[in-house]
């Protein structure tokens, strides 16, 4: 399933900046960065649970927020893109 993950991490403190880096790093491991704090992750349910646990252990629930949008298996119909930033299709042909 395709999960869209977005986050807001409060970076007014040093600890906040650190959390932001850690959240971003975990998201990069599991999916594709499509915008600055927006990731598209094609995951098995078990992988999603693992990622969620990792992310929620990092953030500070008082000041940060995480949102997951479940786009399911037919996620392609639910996404439209305009403008810059090249994004690849994780199920499409990958040639470099």
């Amino acid at each position, binding site marked *: 399933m395709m999960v869209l993950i977005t986050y807001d991490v409060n970076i007014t403190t040093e600890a906040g900046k650190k959390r932001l880096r850690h959240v971003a790093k975990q998201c990069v491991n599991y999916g594709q960065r499509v915008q600055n704090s927006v990731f598209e992750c094609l995951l098995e349910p078990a992988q999603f649970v693992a990622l969620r646990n990792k992310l929620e252990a990092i953030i500070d629930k008082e000041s940060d927020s995480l949102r997951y949008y479940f786009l399911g298996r037919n996620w392609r119909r639910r996404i439209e893109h305009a403008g810059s930033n090249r994004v690849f299709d994780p199920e499409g042909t*990958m040639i470099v």
Partner: protein
Amino acid sequence: MRRLLNVLYVTNPESYLAKDGENLVVRVQDKEVFRTPIHYLEGIVTFGYMGASPALLGMCIEKGVAVSFLTRSGRHQATLHGIPKGNVLLRRKQYRLADSEEDSAKLASMFVIGKLANCRTVLRRFMSDYGAKVQIEEVDLVCKLMAQNVIRLSNEPSLDKVRGIEGESARKYFSVFDNLITCQKPEFYMRGRNRRPPLDNVNALLSFLYSLLLHETRAALQTVGLDPYVGFLHRDRPGRAGLALDLMEEFRPYMADRLALSLINRRQVTGDGFIQKESGGVIMKDTVRKVVIDAWQKRKREEITHPFLEEKIPVGLLPYAQALLLARHLRGDIDGYPPFVWK
């Protein structure tokens, strides 16, 4: 059934493959050109010499991502062979059967039966599609021969005879293959199969598709815990993935030949995409290679009902499904190995 994951094809000879966290990163002249989480992939195929970092290769082994290194022309050079997965007892059984001439012959004939049946279907499909327009007598004759040879194989005890029938059938099949090419006649013709190097456009295309297919069957066998290097029809030779070649036989007509034909007949590849070298060998230009890989990946995502498992699976998982059935047969869970026969 497993999920069909993606395969990354690296055709730019200046690419360097590296690891960053759980990502695979492709760099060209120190600039990042591609990045993907490793769990999107089940394989990496690279063409031409290029670098890959040891850290990346380590991660590929750990995650079970098959990495194949091919030459620019698509000939198979090396594969990353990680720690064997699965059960040592299964592999021992495989070796024992491979040591026995009689057992090898039985299995070998099943692979060849699959191949001939599928060759026949390729020809028959062609005849029903184009029957009225072209002269088909000889195609029909080869069809009949294939059917006879399948029967001969089903009670064929000796390995040499299996090989003999296989060779004869393959020659006959390729002798009428030219009839199946209906477009772009001057540039694309088949006057017999040749390789190392392929001497004409069609042979170059076929060789290339076969090496993509070999990557898939080899990876599939490894995933189920079989040793791709010990075959039944193809005997041991250093560096040759005998069992992967065995398993590949039944898929050649269905997955590669048909794709080659439709690429030519639909004019998706054209004669100017091929270059003849001084040595006589023919290689494909990068643009054609990309078209072929794209068509191959699309083909793999199409769905088909597996004739034995009676389950709908993507075409790309067929080698895996057959490897699974082979492993089950070797374990003794099913009596015979049912080759993939396309109806």
